């Protein structure tokens, strides 16, 4: 059952081929067998999962099943889940049992899905390799020497390894799309404001957005429909109807206008990644799309602008971890300042501290205008680049990442790690949606094609991704896991 898509599993449940309990048990056993080495889960919530599976089976027996009833999935450990440890990959929250559900969790629960547990991630979602987790790095199921990407690396690896058919991630600068690319799965970052951020542990509030990670665009469409929508508890969630994202999946692509941003095919792009992406674009041409080059002239400034804005917001958001109300507290504090300083020094890891220091510095007196205000001005120019491009074309396409997954431990320098996100980060600054779909391999390591659309164009993106998946089989490839023969 582990190599079926979420859509296939939902159909199997509906047809009575297996129960949610049987499916849940099978996947829990698989996690037990395979995840010791992969480390994609921080917490496996077997007991709660089986109880939820039984509720789903009972609902189905009573004729109350919805389209996702009984479907198993996993949640990045950044979504508050009532009664379950929600760590954000940090020692700071290693003892934090969330007292409430995030809206995404509440909606998935209401839809009858079964969460098998909480997946590993870079601490507070700060990272591109999942090596910044307090709970240890995650291995890429395609190649154990490679990172799975980050920050939603656990979610991506768990789906790629067939431990769950889908998982929820969050994306602040590429944290859904880049690990989806590195692990050969499909990952969608919706428009900012499309999915409620309530109960998602905050990193950078004007950039954070949650989205589905699964094997296919069709699976992502079903999940997005379940989690999207306005939420009174998130003032930045958008009051706009949620369409049925599966409705347009089969629309033909004849006449689709694709733009290739010149800046996404330049220096630093691995030639083997480029050739896979160009081949994917030829597939689109064969489906009737037209392709032209466009320019996003401020691309070069996206990483510098992001590394002002995101750390500034992070330094403010993470000020709540004070050792007083929840989270890690140091032993025997001498006074209140010592309590704050030592609890935070012990609770946060190196990358988180780096960003807190960076954000605190750029927001401090004498530096604010030169950094923060300047970065926000540049942010407007970056967004305008995309709006101008979407006046000319329907979607933009390019690589999700300049290289395939790199080796564990290979990127020691923070700046070289940051530059890895060159093709994903501007999308968050602009607030537009983006999806990464499997588009080939370099050796054993997958390549992701990134497709971008204008604000709230998720249905179109999913349609464009789905049509590619009808014409190719990259998304159906599975890593060979040695343990499976045991």
């Amino acid at each position: 059952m582990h190599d079926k898509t979420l859509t296939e599993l939902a159909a199997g449940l509906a047809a009575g081929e297996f129960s949610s309990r049987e499916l849940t048990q099978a996947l829990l056993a698989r996690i037990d067998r395979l995840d010791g080495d992969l480390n994609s889960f921080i917490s496996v919530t077997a007991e709660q999962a089986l109880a939820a599976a039984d509720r789903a089976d009972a609902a189905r027996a009573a004729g109350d099943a919805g389209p996702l009833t009984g479907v198993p999935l996993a949640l990045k450990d950044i979504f508050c889940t009532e009664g379950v440890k929600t760590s954000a990959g940090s020692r700071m929250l290693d003892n934090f049992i969330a007292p409430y559900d995030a809206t995404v969790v509440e909606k998935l629960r209401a839809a009858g899905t079964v969460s098998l547990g909480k997946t590993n991630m870079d601490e507070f979602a700060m990272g591109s390799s999942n090596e910044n987790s307090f709970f240890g790095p995650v291995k890429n199921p395609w190649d154990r020497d490679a990172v799975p990407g980050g920050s939603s690396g656990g979610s991506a690896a768990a789906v790629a390894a067939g431990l769950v058919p889908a998982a929820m991630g969050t994306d602040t600068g590429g944290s859904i799309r880049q690990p989806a690319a590195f692990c050969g799965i499909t990952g969608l970052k919706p428009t900012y404001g499309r999915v409620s951020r309530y109960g998602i542990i905050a990193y950078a509030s004007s950039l954070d957005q949650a989205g589905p990670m699964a094997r296919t665009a069709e699976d992502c469409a079903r999940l997005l429909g379940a989690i999207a929508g306005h939420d009174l508890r998130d003032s930045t969630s958008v009051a706009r109807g949620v369409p049925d994202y599966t409705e347009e999946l089969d629309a033909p692509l004849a006449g689709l206008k694709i733009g290739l941003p010149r800046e996404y095919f330049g220096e630093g792009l691995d030639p083997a990644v480029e050739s896979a992406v160009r081949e994917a674009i030829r597939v689109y041409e064969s489906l009737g799309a037209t392709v032209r080059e466009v320019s996003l002239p401020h691309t070069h400034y996206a990483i510098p602008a992001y590394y002002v804005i995101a750390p500034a917001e992070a330094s403010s958001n993470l000020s709540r971890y004070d050792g007083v109300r929840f989270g890690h507290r140091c032993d025997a504090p001498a006074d209140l300042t010592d309590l704050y300083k030592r609890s935070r020094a012990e609770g946060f890891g190196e990358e988180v501290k780096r960003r807190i220091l960076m954000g605190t510095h750029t927001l401090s007196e004498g530096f604010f205008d030169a950094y923060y205000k300047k970065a926000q001005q540049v942010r407007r120019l970056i967004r305008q680049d995309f709006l101008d491009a979407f006046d000319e074309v329907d979607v933009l396409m390019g690589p999700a990442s300049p290289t395939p997954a790199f080796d564990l431990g290979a990127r020691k320098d923070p700046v070289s790690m940051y530059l890895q996100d060159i093709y994903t980060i501007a999308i968050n600054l602009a607030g537009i949606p983006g999806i990464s779909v499997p588009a080939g391999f370099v050796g054993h390591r997958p390549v992701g094609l990134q497709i971008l659309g204008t604000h709230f164009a998720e249905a179109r993106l999913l349609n464009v991704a789905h049509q590619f998946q009808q014409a190719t089989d990259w998304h159906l490839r599975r890593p060979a896991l040695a343990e499976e023969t045991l």
Partner: protein
Amino acid sequence: MALEHADVLRAAHLARLGLDDDEAAHYLDDLGRILAMVDQLQTLDTEGVDPLAHPLETTQRLRADEVTETDQRDRFQRCAPAVEQGLYLVPRVVE
């Protein structure tokens, strides 16, 4: 804008982040390189461009001034490191 050791210690203090001199030296090096990368922003002319704080530029929504939260203090204090009679305990502040 060159970063000094004292700037790192000042930021650490403002952020209430315990940092010794060696750690500050380590972060000085990293932050210096990050700021050098960020300084590319200064080469771009942004005269007259309005700062963009939020991708959708929405305004804060208003609602009726009604109580919507119930008292859940006990529940929320269950994850606190130290509480007594509904109060969070910290080291003595006033002698």
